[in-house]
């Protein structure tokens, strides 16, 4: 269902070399490959389309013009791009303070007869994204990368610089925190 798809880090290396030699077609390919993903990631963090557009453009510009710095990072290009997007987001928070997430259209979900799952089905995307805002920065990052961006735990580990085990533990705690945040919101 997702246009985001899986990271194509193995395919990136020849393109990166071409961009280094000034090949604009290769730059275009990398831009097309990552722009929507980065936009989506930033949007999930900020909840504002205008800011997400600006930061996604800024991230792609930095990524494709500072490839000299990428050489020394020892991570996949996709991870490097996400790290730049993350830092840009944190910078944005520092400059502007955290902003309230805007409402999103509700997802259309299948019906089920299980009452235990009914609450989740009635949960709007807006509720979910607002509750995400109650989590720590790192917890938000892991949940967004794992479930909105559909990345594997290994890919997330590469991005945030932790072990796979640490990411899995963080993910578990983050889901627990999210559940409690949703329960708290439902009670209010």
């Amino acid at each position, binding site marked *: *269902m*997702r*246009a*985001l798809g899986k990271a194509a880090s193995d395919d990136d290396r020849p393109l990166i070399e071409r961009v280094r030699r*000034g090949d*604009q077609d290769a*730059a*275009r390919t990398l*831009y097309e490959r990552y*722009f*929507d993903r980065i*936009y*989506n990631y930033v*949007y*999930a963090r900020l909840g504002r*389309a205008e800011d*997400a*557009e600006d930061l*996604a*453009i800024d991230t*792609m*510009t930095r990524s*494709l*013009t500072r490839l000299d*710095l990428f050489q020394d990072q020892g991570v996949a290009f996709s991870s490097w791009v996400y790290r730049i997007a993350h*830092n*840009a987001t944190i*910078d944005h928070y*520092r400059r502007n303070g955290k902003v309230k997430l805007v409402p*999103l259209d509700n*997802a259309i*979900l299948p019906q089920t007869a299980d009452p*235990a*799952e009914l609450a*989740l*089905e009635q*949960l709007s*995307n807006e509720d*979910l*994204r607002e509750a995400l805002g109650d*989590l*720590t*920065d*790192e*917890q938000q990052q892991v*949940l967004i990368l794992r*479930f*909105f961006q559909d990345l594997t735990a290994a890919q997330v580990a590469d991005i945030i*610089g932790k072990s796979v085990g640490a990411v899995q533990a*963080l993910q*578990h*705690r983050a*889901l*627990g*925190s*999210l*559940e*409690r*945040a*949703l329960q708290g919101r439902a009670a209010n």
Partner: protein
Amino acid sequence: MPEARRLEALAERMRAVEPVAPSPGAKIRGWNLVLAAVAHSATRRPRISVTRLVLAAAAAGVLLVAGALAASADSLPDSALYPLKGVLEHARGTFAFSPTDQLTYHLELSQTRLAEAEAMIARHRLDLAGRALDGLDNELEDAAQLVQTAKQNDAAAAADMENRLQQAIATHELQLAGLQAQVTNPTALSAISRARDRAAAALQTAEKAGPNGKNGNPSQSPAGGKGNGPATSAHPTPKH
């Protein structure tokens, strides 16, 4: 329902959220900007086939730029190169990825701002000294926030980071106290006093547990009080 199943259901619910696509206009605007930046970046590369004269000119240009960059690294707020220093510092911060690297980055900048404030006070540029001291405090507050966040995720790393922040603030405190003893101007005294207060406040921020309590346990009160680290009292603010 068992916790594992509940959390898996929650994860599935998150996976069901459709990705939000950027507007076509934004994508085109973005590509135009990226293309311009990539083209500009490419033109800065030296070409193998250029003549010796062009090579010499390019080398001179590189030396000039490198000289300006090197000079800007030590420039002071009243220098024409100072804005370039800010750009370089910002660029360096973009590539500080780990919390430890980011802490190092902010502590280095805090020391730089303090040195600038001292120089500006010596030159009687109190407006610029005040800005440098504000910058110092902003860096310390950012560093304190990093420590606070680290406490939720990695207690050992957080303890080390907190220790480094404490040492840095203690050094700054000594320097600020020495500076305060040297000046008589009320505006400068007030700015230094305010900087000392904010540095002490940053330390208190770092000593607190994170927003969700230690180890990310949200059941703890967000106002869970100070940590168990060594208490540091704010310095007495001199009366003017």
